[in-house]
C-alpha cells in the first residue's frame, strides 16, 4: 500500500538525553563528557536538516551537564556565588523533572501501542442494514454542485501533509555580522573604555548580542580592542586600541556572513 505517513523519528532532546543516560548506565562522574557530547553530535548528524530548535535545546542540556561535571571535578570553594549555585540547582532540577516526565510519557506511549495492538486483533462489524431495509428516499445529493464534487476530489487527492518541523520563525531576524562590525568600528573610537553590557544595551534581539560578541572577538584578534573580564560572568570591559580612525572595512567579517547565508534556511 503506497499510502504511508512519512514520519521522521523525531525525539526531543530530553528523550535523547534519557536514552544516553539509561544506555550508558554510568554516573556523570565516571562518564567522559566527550561521550555525551559525541552522542549528541551523532544524534544531530543523524538528522538530515539542521534543526535550530533541537540544536539549541541540545546545547543547553550539554552546557548544563558540563557545568555539573565541572562542579564535581573541582574542589568546592567558599567563594561560590550563591545565586550561581541556586541557578545551577534549578537547572539540574529542571533537567531531572523533564527526564522523569519524558520517561513517564514514554512508558505511557508503550502502553498505548500495546492497547492498540490488542484492539487490532478484533475487527468491528460495519456492514450496516441490508437491502431489506430500503433507506428513506432522501436525496443525499440535494444541493450538492459539481463544483463541490470537484472541491472534494481536490481535497481527497491532495498531497498529504508530511511531518516537518517548522523552524521558519527561528530564522526571522538575520543579523549581518558585517554591519555589526562596521557599527562597532564607528562607535568604539569615541567611547574609550566601555563594557559589553553597555554596547549591547540597545540590542533588539539575542542574535544582535551574539553578533556583537563575535565582532568583538574579531576586533580582538586584529588587536583593535582590548578585552578584560576579572571574574567569571563578570563585566566584560572593552577598550579601543585602534586609534582615532576606524579601519577601512571589516572584510574579515565576510566569512561570517557567508556562513550565515549558506546555512540551510527554511523553505518558504
Amino acid at each position, binding site marked *: 500500500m503506497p499510502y504511508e505517513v512519512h514520519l521522521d523519528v523525531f525525539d526531543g532532546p530530553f528523550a535523547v538525553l534519557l536514552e544516553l543516560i539509561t544506555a550508558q548506565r554510568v554516573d556523570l562522574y565516571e562518564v567522559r563528557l566527550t561521550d555525551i557530547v559525541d552522542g549528541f553530535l551523532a544524534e544531530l548528524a543523524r538528522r538530515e536538516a539542521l534543526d535550530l530548535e533541537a540544536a539549541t535545546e541540545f546545547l543547553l542540556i550539554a552546557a548544563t551537564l558540563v557545568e555539573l561535571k565541572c562542579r564535581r571535578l573541582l574542589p568546592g570553594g567558599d567563594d561560590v556565588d550563591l545565586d550561581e549555585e541556586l541557578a545551577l540547582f534549578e537547572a539540574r532540577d529542571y533537567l531531572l523533572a523533564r527526564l522523569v516526565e519524558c520517561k513517564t510519557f514514554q512508558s505511557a506511549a508503550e502502553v498505548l501501542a500495546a492497547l492498540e495492538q490488542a484492539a487490532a486483533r478484533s475487527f468491528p462489524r460495519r456492514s450496516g442494514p441490508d437491502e431489506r431495509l430500503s433507506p428513506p428516499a432522501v436525496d*443525499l445529493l440535494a444541493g450538492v454542485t459539481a463544483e463541490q464534487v470537484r472541491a472534494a476530489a481536490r481535497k*481527497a487527492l491532495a498531497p*498529504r501533509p508530511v511531518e516537518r518541523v517548522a523552524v521558519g520563525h527561528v530564522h526571522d531576524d538575520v543579523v549581518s555580522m558585517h554591519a555589526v562590525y562596521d557599527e562597532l568600528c564607528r562607535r568604539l573610537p569615541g567611547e574609550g573604555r566601555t563594557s559589553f553590557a553597555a554596547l549591547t544595551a540597545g540590542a533588539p534581539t539575542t542574535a544582535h548580542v551574539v553578533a556583537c560578541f563575535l565582532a568583538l572577538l574579531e576586533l580582538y584578534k586584529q588587536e583593535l580592542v582590548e578585552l578584560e573580564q576579572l571574574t567569571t560572568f563578570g563585566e566584560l570591559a572593552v577598550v579601543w586600541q585602534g586609534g582615532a580612525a576606524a579601519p577601512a572595512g571589516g572584510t574579515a567579517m565576510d566569512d561570517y556572513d557567508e556562513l550565515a547565508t549558506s546555512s540551510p534556511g527554511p523553505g518558504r
Partner: protein
Amino acid sequence: MSGLPEDLRAEAAALEAVLTVATEPVPPGVLAELLEVPVERVEQLGAALAASYEADERGFQLARVAGGFRLQSHPAYQGYVERFVFDEAPSKLSPAALETLAIVAYKQPISRAQIAAVRGVNADGVLRVLVQRGYVEPVGRDDGPGQAVLFGTTAEFLERLGLDRVEDLPPLEGFVPDVATVEALEHVLRPDGGP
C-alpha cells in the same frame, strides 16, 4: 457454541468471526478456502449455525443470500432495526462519503482497494452507502490478479448533479495530486476480496 455438534464448533466460530466483519454475502467457496475445509463442510457449518441461531431465538440470523452467507438482523426485530436505521439516517452525505464519491467520479473505473489507498482508510462502508443510494455501481472487473470489482458513477449521479456526461465534471486542471495517490491509482495493489 452450545447446540452445535462438538466437532463443528471451532470451525463454526471461525466462520462466525468472518461473517461478523463481512459487508457483503460471502460465497461458500471463499469461506472454504479461508477455513481450509471442503465447500460441503462450509454448507454443513452454515446450516448448523443458522439452525442454532433460530433455535436460540437470536436477534440475528444466518441467511443464504446472493450466492453467499450473510449475518443479518432477524425479521422479528425489523421494527427496532428500522427505527434505529431511520433515526440515524443522515439527510445529506457525510464529508467522507462526498470525498469517496468525488474520487470515484474523477478516477473511475476504480477498485475498492484503490479508493482505500487514496483515502488512506478503508472505504467499504462509505462505498456501500453510495452503491445503496444508486450514486455508484460496479462497472467491471480489473484484469489484474484478483479481478477486483471496479466502480463508476451512475446515471442517477449525473442526473442529480445536472450533468450529461462524466466528462462534463469541472476539470481538475492545474491540480497536482499526491505522489502516493498517483501510485495508488497506477497499481492494483492486491486482490479485492469482495465476492
